[in-house]
């Protein structure tokens, strides 16, 4: 069942179309991550869902109830949606307990019941004993958990997260990313999370939306988007990627061979027939290239490469390789030195043809 339905949403600011006619659904219990660069419209989308911004056009339905439609808008406080802000927006003049309890004051709850709920949720997010502290005395990670608890205690039908990890330093960000996913799942909430960080998006999402210039480029699971990017932009934006342009010289039902430059021949597993003689762009992920081993006779997609650059990352290295005059990115723990020659093999199944 779709908890959130967004249909033909459009938002115009002056002369710019911040959101240009987008539609998507979010299923119950799913974490939907909208990812895109700055100015792609992800923040505006989130604010339209929250009710902090009124759409120019389109319909937003939460839990079967229309909350925004042309000429009609339910104010944010009546939408039953929770939100975690980028700055966390914890009220500096209220203690942790008061921050979390604030929303409950308007529910018809006894003081004891409210206290029990707040204490319970703080325990769940690991902040027992912090009730009387003020937000300014908490670390970034703790503030984020208070912000989450403040929304979660109201058991919203939908939780919105506006880049809540972007204020944390790298190490903590990774840790909180995993905790955040666990906590959202623990509370059984449906969530829409926006971020500009593609790694964060892949780690958090059940479903991802890639946005650019107010439009949706692709919707899918993180695996789908990484392995079969719909176009050049998505392939480039999500994960590392190398691109080659070639002309199809031999084609059959399952694969085609492309001539890249004068001498490099590359066989590619294809899902749709390719017109012989047509030009295509191929996207190759670093994990589609294997480094090492001895040259085999008659093996396909086998090349000699030279190492141009190595970035050592501990568990493995990222290499920039020169393959027949083309530059390709590959990951390996082969410990090559710069300038060293090696053999590479490119898996035909891990090459994707992307429309320009």
């Amino acid at each position, binding site marked *: 069942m779709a908890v959130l339905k967004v249909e033909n949403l459009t938002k115009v600011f002056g002369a710019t179309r911040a959101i240009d006619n987008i539609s998507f659904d979010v299923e119950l219990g799913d974490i939907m991550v909208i990812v895109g660069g700055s100015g792609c419209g992800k923040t505006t989308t989130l604010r339209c869902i*929250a*009710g*902090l911004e009124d759409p120019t056009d389109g319909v937003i339905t939460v839990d079967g109830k229309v909350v925004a439609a042309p000429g009609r808008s339910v*104010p*944010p*406080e*009546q939408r039953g*949606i*929770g*939100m975690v*802000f*980028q*700055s966390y*927006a*914890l*009220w*500096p*003049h209220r203690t942790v307990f008061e921050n979390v309890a*604030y*929303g409950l004051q*308007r529910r018809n709850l006894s003081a004891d019941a409210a206290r029990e709920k707040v204490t319970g949720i703080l325990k769940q997010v690991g902040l027992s004993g912090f009730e009387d502290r003020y937000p300014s005395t908490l670390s970034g990670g703790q503030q984020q958990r208070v912000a989450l608890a*403040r*929304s979660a205690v*109201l058991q919203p039908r939908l939780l*919105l997260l506006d880049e809540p990890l972007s204020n944390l330093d790298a190490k903590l960000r990774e840790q909180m990313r995993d905790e955040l996913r666990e906590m959202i799942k623990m509370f059984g909430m449906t969530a829409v999370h926006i971020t500009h960080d593609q790694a964060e998006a892949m780690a958090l999402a059940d479903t991802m939306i890639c946005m650019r210039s107010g439009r949706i480029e692709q919707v899918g699971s993180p695996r789908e988007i990484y392995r079969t990017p719909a176009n050049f932009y998505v392939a480039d934006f999500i994960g590392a990627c190398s691109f080659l342009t070639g002309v199809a010289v031999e084609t059959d039902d399952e694969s085609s061979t492309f001539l890249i430059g004068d001498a490099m021949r590359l066989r590619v597993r294809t899902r749709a027939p390719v017109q012989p003689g047509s030009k295509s762009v191929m996207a190759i992920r670093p994990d589609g290239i294997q480094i090492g081993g001895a040259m085999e006779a008659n093996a396909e997609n086998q090349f000699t490469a030279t190492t141009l650059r190595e970035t050592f990352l501990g568990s493995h290295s990222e290499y920039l390789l020169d393959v027949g005059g083309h530059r390709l990115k590959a990951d390996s723990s082969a410990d090559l030195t710069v300038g060293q020659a090696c053999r590479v093999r490119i898996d035909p199944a891990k090459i994707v043809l992307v429309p320009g």
Partner: protein
Amino acid sequence: MLLLVVILAPVASVFYGSFRTGPPGSPDAGFTLQNWVTAYFSPSYVSALINTVWLGATVAALSLVVGGTIAWIIARTDTPGRMQLALLMIVPLMISNLITTLAWIALAAPNAGFINAYVRGWTGVRTIFNIYSFAGIVLVHVLHYASFAFLALFAALKSVDASLEEASYMVGYGPVQTSARMTLPLIAPTIATTFLVIFVFVAENFSVPTLLGTPVGFQTLPSLIYYNMAVTPSQPNLAAASGTVLVWVAIIGTILQRRFTRHSDRYVTVTGKGSRQREVRLGQWRYATFGLVALYLLLAVALPYLALVIGSLLNFLTPNLRWSAFTLDNYRVLFTEDNLTAVTNSLLLAGGGGLALTAIYVLMSFALGRVRGAWGRVTDYVTIIPTAVPALILGVGLIWTFVGLPVPIYGTMAILMIAYFLRNIGYGVRQADNAFNQVSGDLVEAARMTGASRLRAFLDVSVPIIKPAIFSLWTMLFIFIFMEVSATILLYTPATRTMPTVLWNYMGSGSQPRAFAIAVAQANIIFIVLYLAERWFKTLRTSLDK
């Protein structure tokens, strides 16, 4: 719209009146250009204009030197007791320069002044320093406005991103060259703005040159205007015409100042936390710098206060402090019926009126904040007009606006409140704006996302957060109103007299010790208010941070 009328009517009536032969309402008044000819071309008026500009420029420059040096000492060196000195540095600005003038008359009047008498006993020099002089006027103003320059430059020095200076050190420049090549240009817009603000304040001040300049034939435009308004036979239309000259001076100053302020946005270097500037280690010299700041505070606060207290306990102003010269009569007079009215009026206007104005400015800021676009900008500019119009002229304008109206406002506290409202509108609305800007939109939106309505969110989130700023605004308005004399002097009646007007009249009638007693009372009340405000709302501390 009503706001526009209230703001513009007094200014318009001044311009109208300046072309008339008699005050508004007089039957045989006609149109004339004579007032303008006199005010713009006659030698005495031209020389008063030159005096005004020259005085304003001298005071602004010297205040910047004194205030700037102290700001550098406190912001950038390891001088002992910096934080306490910084708080004390605000005090001179809170004591009106009328009171400082009185104190310095007690200290440096040609014969009877305490300093002159003391030095004469030592050296035989009859008068080492005569306060009744151009130098005396400059001294009193500089003691007051150095504090203002300090606040502005201290904030600017604190906000310069430390890494900009560090980058200059790293490419090989020493502290002196770094200051000259990096720091000074970075705070140059602040220096220019501060110069102009002080210039405009000094140019419109009438009380100091009237008390210290008129006896020796030194006139500025404001003192001349006051003379034309208050001394019989009064020439209000001529006063209005010369008032228009002063309006131009003030408007040019304000426009230039706003231009510099807009310019300074480019230099915004505030990075907030984590940028601590390098402190200059002074070694033994740090006691000298401490002494320098202490000397300023001595001259601007301690010595004047002492002189006022002693002077207020004397039968008449004399340096011969014999027991028989002392009396408590001056304070007893404070509690006679007439003066008690002034005390209650002052406290009522400053306390109750200040609170009312605080509420009005906050509501105006809230309302103007929601009016965006062209109309908002118009209102924004309109609110600075009354600030640019000299208080005396505002007084004249208000008389003429309301004296003809059937509404019985003239001669009541209401007309004083209108004057105070107009005088402080620019400051008040800006402070309220700053307060609202402290509340980030996220905090309010977060409240709405947990189910609070727009009003609830305003009450639960915005109001508690801006509360200290609101109380600080009230404190400042209390002090401004409590000290106000320039507009009040033309608008008060016996029933609506205030402490500064009574003080002024005692000075006029030669009862200096009685004026001193009122000044002491005023200063004490200000000290108490400041102390409480600092204690409860950290008012002084926050004004240092800005």
